[in-house]
């Protein structure tokens, strides 16, 4: 039996990382009886191995729940649990498009953090009814009154009636459901109008093929129906229609307000661009829904197989991963030092780390990655402009008229006592302060920063300088012209492409010097002297020397234990395998990333 539209409620759960979104979803699933006790586990919606291991949500997840309200009516709830990390903000934005309201979960022991703010603004922009919830009241450090003041001051929404709950114990969760019924408006739309469904997400399922997550606005979707993608005008016949309970469960039809999936014998996810509008082939809608901007990769890094023979495997594995994650891109690349690999673009550093980890774990690959960099816009003297994804590809300086680099607007929340460290970090990274306000003893600073200065170890530095108390969020904030140079690193006169980097002119020399010093310690001594140089154009700006190895043998007594000698040899040989050859010089793979860290922390 179909639920009438006034008994539907669609909402997202948004919050800063670890404030308890997935745990709250667990309690709601329990209350509504979505899963049996046997099927239930902590953060049940975090289904990927890597999510469970790291205890974080990476992909937004949808669940349809049946809820019997105290007001006597039965409701159908579509809950979307979203990730909290800034790299996956895109997941949040598109989830919001499928809903009319959001729960803003705030950890009452910690208070408002950077992603609390960022995600709250996203929800407000999406015209959502925003319901603040104070979580973790079971903990002794919980201070709900202070935190509700903070929400009002910093986020600017009324939190006087904010519910105080514990997602862990379930305390207060039933009231949250009631509040959703009361405050979140039911969806609108008509089943009789031409079909308009928003393509929220798509991924490849090994059993069901390409699955498309949709939010129906008008019309309906049912098995056998012929649909059309409005962006490409391609049409398909629907094989299956269903909802997540959270298990995929086939149903008869999806009607306005519903969030569910369809499958239609589609071969690749590339045919199903998120944000597209799905309509009926027979009776198409006049205009598509607004949709949303595609996600753009902002951090680039190259991945190389440790063993060159694994190149094809790496390509296949990347292709497979991309089936479920269209937000990263890759392109074959050849490096003199590291061989064949791929230049890959990611949403951020965590995204990079996760993709790399999945490649290593799920596909058994052993990888080296180069230091992350950003996309520069080069304006050439001949009037052309081009995008530079890889410092190694930088053309001759004489051909370049000027270079632009991407900037971000960063919001950092930090307790007063650590503010000093944060401010000097931002200044050191060429930041421009835009705003500094206080909410109680917590400072909120807004900076404009070059993305280039953030992609490597900014987050690590921020954490260490604030003892883990600072939170950080950013948005892209356009391109600006900048005095940038490419610094090349030469080892015994040979340029090492994978180590070259782009830096601001004022910092180039110091960075070059630091990297030479680093490499001096990272490159083991060999049978000859090794010169390490940093150069801008033809000018050497720093130089270090690794002295020659004088002796590599110990006159040691082993007796008949030659097993031990063999094991030692094997170990040394393994170490050697992890070396890359630049001319005569062997460089350990780990050096390619370690050398470029800008600080020791």
């Amino acid at each position, binding site marked *: 039996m179909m639920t009438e539209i006034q008994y539907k409620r669609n909402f997202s759960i948004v919050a800063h990382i670890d404030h308890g979104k997935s745990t709250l979803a667990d309690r709601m699933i329990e209350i509504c009886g979505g899963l049996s006790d046997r099927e239930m586990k902590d953060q049940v919606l975090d289904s990927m191995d890597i999510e469970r291991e790291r205890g974080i949500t990476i992909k937004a997840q949808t669940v349809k729940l049946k809820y019997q309200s105290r007001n006597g009516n039965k409701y159908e709830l579509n809950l979307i649990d979203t990730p909290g990390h800034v790299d996956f903000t895109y997941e949040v934005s598109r989830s919001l498009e499928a809903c009319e309201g959001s729960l803003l979960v705030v950890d009452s022991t910690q208070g408002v953090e950077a992603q609390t703010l960022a995600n709250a603004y996203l929800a407000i922009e999406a015209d959502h009814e925003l319901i603040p919830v104070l979580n973790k009241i079971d903990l002794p450090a919980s201070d709900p009154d202070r935190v509700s003041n903070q929400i009002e001051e910093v986020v600017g929404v009324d939190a006087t009636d904010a519910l105080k709950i514990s997602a862990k114990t379930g305390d207060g969760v039933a009231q949250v459901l009631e509040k959703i019924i009361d405050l979140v408006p039911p969806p609108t739309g008509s089943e009789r109008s031409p079909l308009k469904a928003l393509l929220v997400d798509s991924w490849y399922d090994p059993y069901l093929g390409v699955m498309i997550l949709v939010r129906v606005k008008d019309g309906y979707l049912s098995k056998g129906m012929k649909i059309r993608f409005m962006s490409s005008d391609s049409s398909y016949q629907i094989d299956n229609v269903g909802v997540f309970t959270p298990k995929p469960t086939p149903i008869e039809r999806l009607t306005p307000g519903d969030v569910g999936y369809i499958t239609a014998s589609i071969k690749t996810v590339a045919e199903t661009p998120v944000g597209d509008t799905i309509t009926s082939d027979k009776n198409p809608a006049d205009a598509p829904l607004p949709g949303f901007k595609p996600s753009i990769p902002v951090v680039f890094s190259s991945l190389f197989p440790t063993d060159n023979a694994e190149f094809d495997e790496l390509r296949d594995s990347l292709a497979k991963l991309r089936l479920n994650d269209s937000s990263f891109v890759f392109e074959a690349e050849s490096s003199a030092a590291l061989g064949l690999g791929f230049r890959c673009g990611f949403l951020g550093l965590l995204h990079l780390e996760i993709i790399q980890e999945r490649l290593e774990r799920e596909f058994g690959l052993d990888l080296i990655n180069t230091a992350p960099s950003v996309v520069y816009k080069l304006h050439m003297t001949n009037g052309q402009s081009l995008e530079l994804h890889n410092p190694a590809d930088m053309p001759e300086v004489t051909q370049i008229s000027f270079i632009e680099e991407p900037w971000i607007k960063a919001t950092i929340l930090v307790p007063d006592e650590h503010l000093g460290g944060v401010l000097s970090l931002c200044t050191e990274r060429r930041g421009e302060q835009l705003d500094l306000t206080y909410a109680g003893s917590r400072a909120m600073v807004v900076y404009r920063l070059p993305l280039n200065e953030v992609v490597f170890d900014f987050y690590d530095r921020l954490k260490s300088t604030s003892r883990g108390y600072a939170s950080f969020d950013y948005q892209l904030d356009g391109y600006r012209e900048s005095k940038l140079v490419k610094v090349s690193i030469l080892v015994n006169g040979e340029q090492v492409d994978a180590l070259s980097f782009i830096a601001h002119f004022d910092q180039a020399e110091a960075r070059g010097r630091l990297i030479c010093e680093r490499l001096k310690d990272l490159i083991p001594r060999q049978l000859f002297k090794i010169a390490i140089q940093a150069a801008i154009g033809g000018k050497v700006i720093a130089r270090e020397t690794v002295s020659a190895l004088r002796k590599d043998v110990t006159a040691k*007594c082993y*007796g008949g234990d030659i097993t031990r000698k063999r094991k030692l040899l094997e170990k040394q040989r393994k170490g050697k395998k992890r070396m890359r050859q630049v001319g005569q010089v062997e460089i350990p793979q780990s050096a390619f990333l370690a050398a470029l860290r800008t600080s020791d922390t």
Partner: protein
Amino acid sequence: MKHFGIYIHWPFCESKCPYCDFNSHVEESIDEGRWLAAYLSELNRYANTTSKRTVTSIFFGGGTPSLMGSETLGEIIKAISDRWNLWKNAEITLEANPSSAEKNKFIEFKQNGVTRLSLGVQSLDEDSLLFLGRKHSVSEAKEAAVVASEVFDRFSLDVIYGLPGQSPTKWKRELAEILKLVTTHISAYQLTIEPGTQFYRDKVNTGGEAVEKKMFDYTYDLLEKKNLNAYEISNFAKPGHECLHNCTYWTGDDYLGIGPGSHGRITKSDFNYLGLETYATLGIKSPKKWLENVEEKGSGDLRTSKLKPSERIDELIICGLRMAKGLDTGKFFSQTGISLYDVINKEKLLTFKERGWVKQNKDTLFLTHKGRNFLNYLAVDLLA
């Protein structure tokens, strides 16, 4: 028929030296009779399958095997000659410490069959002996060496250098003193700090690379002048006085390992004429458990595993290159069924030859003096 050496491990010492990572233990009382019976039982176990072989060397190592009664030693030697064909020129070495009690037993040892003595003097400097935790004095060391040289035609001194704070000059003086005591064989080891030792726990440092290299080079030069050739990285001998038993390790010949934690290598040539199957044996490390196992289960073996061809090749090369005469290509082929130059990286070989680190003769491949300084580095590259 094939020949082999037999290693007998006596795992006890009077005290534990702080640098020592051998399988040596200090026990209040030792039932020597039980130990003898266990050694004989282990010898029997191997004799069943190898009785046709000729034993060319026996080596009593430890621990401090000179703490054994000379009759016990005699019984073991006799048992070996009963079970195998003991070559008439077999080398029978005993490791000894220079305490006066042991010194007085040298003659008895000789009477019971020992033909070669390896004396662990370690140093001729009072402070260094103290640092190394040795229980003897310089004069005791000297006296023991004199007695040993009188009793045995073949005898060797063990010394350790590269101690923290030891200057090359000091080592030179010490080496000159040593050369007054021995003219035929010296084993000169560098102090290394091994995990599990007292020095490791105390975070003792060695002399440092620059100093060590100086001492290493000096030792080679001086001993060479005295006609003591570095026939192996840390062993120097007058021609004809090389330790035959240790050479079995380095040339990939067979040896039985008898006793707790002892290693052995046995090639089963009886079934396969190319002799490609080499087994590595390893005794149970704990003396008590070893003894109980031998007594109750009839074997002190912890594991016997067949070496993979690649493991065998690694061992032959890394050990062979330790020796001045290097690797014999014909022998390598007979041991592996593969040509040496098929397993060695040719490009690297060429580079190393050009640099004068490696040399090739008709049947041998060996490291030059300069090359031996980089033995580990070169071996890894040659096998890459």
